[in-house]
């Protein structure tokens, strides 16, 4: 069998399954579409280099951990201060708004992106990816309790900013 073809085939499958959630996770961290695309690109190149060492049983968790590491080194390399940067409004426009009115989606995403990084990534993993706190704790290398409390604090903040937004 052609090994190169096998690797490409497997990576293509991985891309089809996980590129979208990982891209969204990267957006949650980096707040910029172009940066998230760059990091996603680098991530898949790295995966192809380390292909033989990847355990296929937990490929999703592995991809999220690697995506986070890549995003963090991207932030360091580019000396970005993501917490202080403004939200890219163009990025919010590209959301699929089939089910909720667009202003409500944007409101939520703005509020989510205004959370501190450690809280917004937990919310993303819990709500959009359906990870358990145990899985989140393992990906972020924190305890389950920490993951849980970050999530709770984040929800309180989100509720506050959404209520504030709808009243004013």
């Amino acid at each position, binding site marked *: 069998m052609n090994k190169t073809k096998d690797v490409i085939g497997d*990576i293509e499958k991985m891309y089809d399954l996980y590129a979208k959630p990982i*891209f969204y996770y990267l957006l949650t961290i980096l707040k910029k579409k172009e940066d998230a695309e760059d990091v996603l690109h680098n991530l898949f190149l790295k995966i192809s*280099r380390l292909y033989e060492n990847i355990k296929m049983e937990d490929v999703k968790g592995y991809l999220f951990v690697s995506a986070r590491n890549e995003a963090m080194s991207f932030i360091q390399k580019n000396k970005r201060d993501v917490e202080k940067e403004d939200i890219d409004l163009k990025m919010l426009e*590209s959301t*699929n708004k089939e089910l*909720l009115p667009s202003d409500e989606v944007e409101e939520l995403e703005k509020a989510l992106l205004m959370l501190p990084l450690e809280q917004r990534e937990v919310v993303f993993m819990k709500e959009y990816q359906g990870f358990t706190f145990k899985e989140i704790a393992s990906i972020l290398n924190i305890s389950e309790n920490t993951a849980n409390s970050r999530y709770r604090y984040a*929800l309180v903040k*989100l509720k506050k900013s*959404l209520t504030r937004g709808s009243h004013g």
Partner: protein
Amino acid sequence: MDKYFKNTKLKELRPGLKKEILANIRKELPGQSIFDNFSFVRIYWSLITAAFAVLIFVNIHTNKSHENLMVTQYSACASADTECKMEIIGIARAQGMLSNPIFKAKS
């Protein structure tokens, strides 16, 4: 809160990004050869290599037989017939057989 999360969908990826990523991976993969997508070329290449190996083997074998023949002819020359011997050594030299111990000693 649930209403928000359950009803939003993930952002779409830029069309073409997948192709770009896979093309770069293809470029980077070790051992990637232009023959990978043309297995028939690989088969022909193997056959040609095998044919060359057989030719080289036959050639070596023929040379060896020829060398043995020359040694026999050399031995057949009468011991005093220097001209016969010199002629055979001349041919052996021209054909690169001087590594043979018999011709080496006499040349």
